[in-house]
C-alpha cells in the first residue's frame, strides 16, 4: 500500500479526476473530502461489505423457502386488513 503524509487542507489526486482532501484531523479520526466522477461509487468500506454480504446471502435463496416466505408475507398483509 502506498502511504503518503499530508497536512490538513492538502490533497492527493488519483487518476485524472479523483481528488481526496484531508479536511480536518481529530484525536482518533480524520475527515476526508472526496471529489470523484458520478460513475465512481464512494462508500465507507464496512457499508460496502455489508451490502455485498447481503447480496451474496440473497442469491443463495431456495425456491421452497421463497414460496414459504411469500405465504408468510401474504398472511401478515391480510391480517392487517
Amino acid at each position: 500500500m502506498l502511504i503518503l503524509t499530508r497536512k490538513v487542507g492538502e490533497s492527493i489526486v488519483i487518476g485524472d479526476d479523483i481528488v481526496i482532501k484531508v479536511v480536518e484531523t481529530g484525536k482518533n479520526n480524520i475527515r476526508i473530502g472526496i471529489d470523484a466522477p458520478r460513475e465512481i461509487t464512494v462508500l465507507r468500506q464496512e457499508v460496502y461489505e455489508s451490502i455485498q454480504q447481503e447480496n451474496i446471502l440473497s442469491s443463495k435463496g431456495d425456491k421452497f423457502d421463497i414460496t414459504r416466505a411469500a405465504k408468510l408475507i401474504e398472511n401478515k398483509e391480510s391480517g392487517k386488513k
Partner: protein
Amino acid sequence: MKIQTRQFGEVDIDADKIINMPSGIPGFKDKKRYVVLQKEETVPFFLYQSVDDSNLSFVVLDPTKVMPEYSIEKSDFEKSVDWAFEEEEISCFVIVTIPNGNPEKMTANFMAPLVINNDRKQGVQIVLQSSNYSHKQPLLK
C-alpha cells in the same frame, strides 16, 4: 429467448425486457444483464434473475408492499446516474434475504435498493448513505 434458471427452470423471456446493470451488483460485478421474473406461488416476491448465469438470482420485493412510507429521493441517486427523473419511469425493489429453512427470519435491505429505469432498461443498486434504513430489516415484525 429462453434462459435457464435455478429457481424457475427454463423461462421464456422477452429480449427487450432485459435490464442492463453497467456496474453490476456489489458481490457480482461481472454480471450485467438481468430480468424480473415472477411466479404465482412466489407473489409478492420477484426474482431478479441473471440472464448470463442460471445460478444467480436475487429475491426482490416492492418495498411499499411492507413499508408504505418508504421512498427514495432524486437526491439519493442523482450522483450515481444521469437519468431524466421527470420523464422516465423508475421502479424500485429491495433485495430480500431468506435464510435456508428459516423463511420467518427473512430480512430486506432497505439501505441499498435496486433502482430500475424502465425507459432506459438500466438498473443500479444505490446506497442511501444518509438514511436510517437498515440493510437487514426483518420483514415479519
